[in-house]
């Protein structure tokens, strides 16, 4: 039987983790073992997750390709499909199409320092590449993670943040917006761009990966420029509305680019060539 591009894999929800209010992580395994064996992806790629009867929703694969046998996704309950997903229980079967899109060029980053800057729910797209880098730690020099959220409650992957904090081969700086701290909060207090400016990482031989809400990105780019980062070395992901995931449905088209095909990973240099429609 020939299947179409639109046929999803059936995935079983193995484990559900509540990350923050309205934010959940699903660990998904292929229902069909053969699908599992034929499946491969790289850091940065995304998929179309679906609840049958509700529709499909686009988000990244949040687990690292170095961890085999499953994929993970993290989403915030916000629309029709993510709400339906949030209502699923462990053991339920959902749909997944993918992987789609381009990748973070980890091969090109060998021998470099990596600076990860994430805000709020935008850590998941970065978690994949962070773990990928940490699992192949010998390939990179210093790894720094700056992660901020509105409040302590909104920080996702709290267990992993602890793990990264303990590790001595990665520097983790967490921050919450002023007013979002709790009495026993030990991290920074302040907006992500100003924390980046404060810790002032060296731009020398460093790539920066920035994911977060538009306003965070808008104010982080100039800080990075001031620190001497070149546009080609600053990476981010675009989150345009998508439907098909493979460059046909037209939704994510921005200028000559199909975000689902040419992205979601772009350098700041590439973004500067694009019309401001993302």
């Amino acid at each position, binding site marked *: 039987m*020939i*299947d179409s591009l*639109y046929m*999803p894999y059936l995935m079983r929800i193995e484990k559900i983790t509540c990350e923050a209010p309205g934010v959940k992580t699903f660990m998904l395994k292929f229902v069909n073992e053969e699908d599992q064996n034929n499946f491969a992806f790289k850091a940065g790629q995304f998929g179309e997750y679906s609840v049958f009867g509700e*529709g499909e929703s686009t988000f990244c694969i949040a687990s690292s390709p170095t961890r085999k046998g499953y994929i993970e996704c993290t989403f915030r309950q916000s629309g029709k499909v993510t709400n339906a997903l949030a209502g699923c229980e462990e053991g339920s079967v959902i749909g997944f199409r993918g992987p789609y899109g381009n990748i973070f060029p980890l091969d090109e980053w060998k021998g470099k320092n990596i600076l990860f800057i994430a805000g709020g729910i935008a850590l998941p797209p970065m978690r994949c590449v962070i773990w990928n880098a940490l699992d192949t730690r010998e390939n990179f020099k210093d790894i720094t993670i700056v992660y901020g959220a509105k409040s302590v409650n909104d920080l996702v992957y709290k267990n992993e943040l602890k793990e990264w904090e303990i590790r001595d081969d990665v520097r983790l700086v967490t921050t919450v917006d002023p007013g979002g701290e709790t009495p026993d909060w030990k991290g920074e207090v302040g907006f992500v761009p100003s924390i980046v400016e404060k810790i002032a990482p060296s731009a020398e031989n460093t790539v920066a990966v920035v994911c977060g809400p538009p306003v965070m990105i808008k104010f982080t780019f100039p800080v990075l420029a001031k620190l001497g980062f070149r546009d080609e070395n600053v990476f981010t992901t675009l989150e345009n509305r998508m439907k098909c995931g493979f460059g*046909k*449905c*037209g939704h994510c088209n921005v200028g000559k680019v199909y975000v689902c095909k040419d992205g979601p990973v772009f350098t700041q240099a590439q973004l500067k060539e694009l019309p401001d429609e*993302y």
Partner: protein
Amino acid sequence: MNIERRLVRKDSLEKLFDILRQNKKTVFAPVMKNGKASFKPVGSFSSIAEDYIQTTQSSKEVIFPRVEKFLDYEKNGKEVSIKGFDYQSVTETVLWGVRPCDTIGFGTLNSIFNWDFKDEIFNARLSKTIILSFSCNKSDDYCFCTSVGGNPGSTAGSDILFTKLGADGDYLAEVVTEKGQAIVALASELFEKTESVEKEKFLANVPVKFNQEEIRKKLEKFFKSSQWVEQSLKCLGCGACAFVCPTCACFDIQDDAHGKIGSRMRCWDSCGYSQFTVHTSGHNPRSVQSQRWRQRIMHKFSYMPERLSVYGCTGCGRCSRACPADMNILEHLISIQEVKI
């Protein structure tokens, strides 16, 4: 293959139609309703409309239906079973009476659906469709095929192109593809050998109005022009232009649920809708109509030639005819060409 030229007597067309029907082919042909011609499955030759310049909708619907089901699912507790597209359901279909500006559009759609990933469902429909087109012997002010690389007697995309030789004349049949030859083989006695015929004089005269290469070059630097706002002020933001267009292929993917069972399908969508690009957060990258109108033109005349090596317009003029606010694409393209940068 070389184009074979044959002569089909005017009263042989009906015989050809009947032979197609006898061979169990579904024939889609223009039918008149409420004063508008549109493609419908047709059972008898007499119901085919004759006097029309252009159908209101393009014939793309036969290959890219407005609702296309991909899969059926059935839920059972936490389990789900799914059944994919039913390729057996795609049967041999004949498109009868298509204009050359429509047939060229199938090439464009083919580029969209196959430029990278291959869309098997589209391909299944395209490969099962036989395109019998008819040259245009009349045109109106909305037509501009000759400005976008087509012409009223273009064989591009057709399996057989018929050209009526004079008001009450017979037809020249140009057999373009093997699919066309297979049709000839079904009714070889109707396709007579003929001397070379000058078909040009029987074709509609559609003057060239602009140069699309020039437009494309101009658009490179035209993104920030105030013209988009001026042109689109009267645009009401409906999707009529996109839905009648032979090359517009944007779609949405939706589920249709009935209790435990349901299906997933794609349905037509339009970049002119305000909701087309809205993020779940509420952020809308193209929040005003001028941006959406710009996207429509840029996509057809700049992005598509760059990415897919085809232009997204066949000059059929349907969008202009269908527009409730008289947004005329030809007029707008000419005014873009005339702007000095």
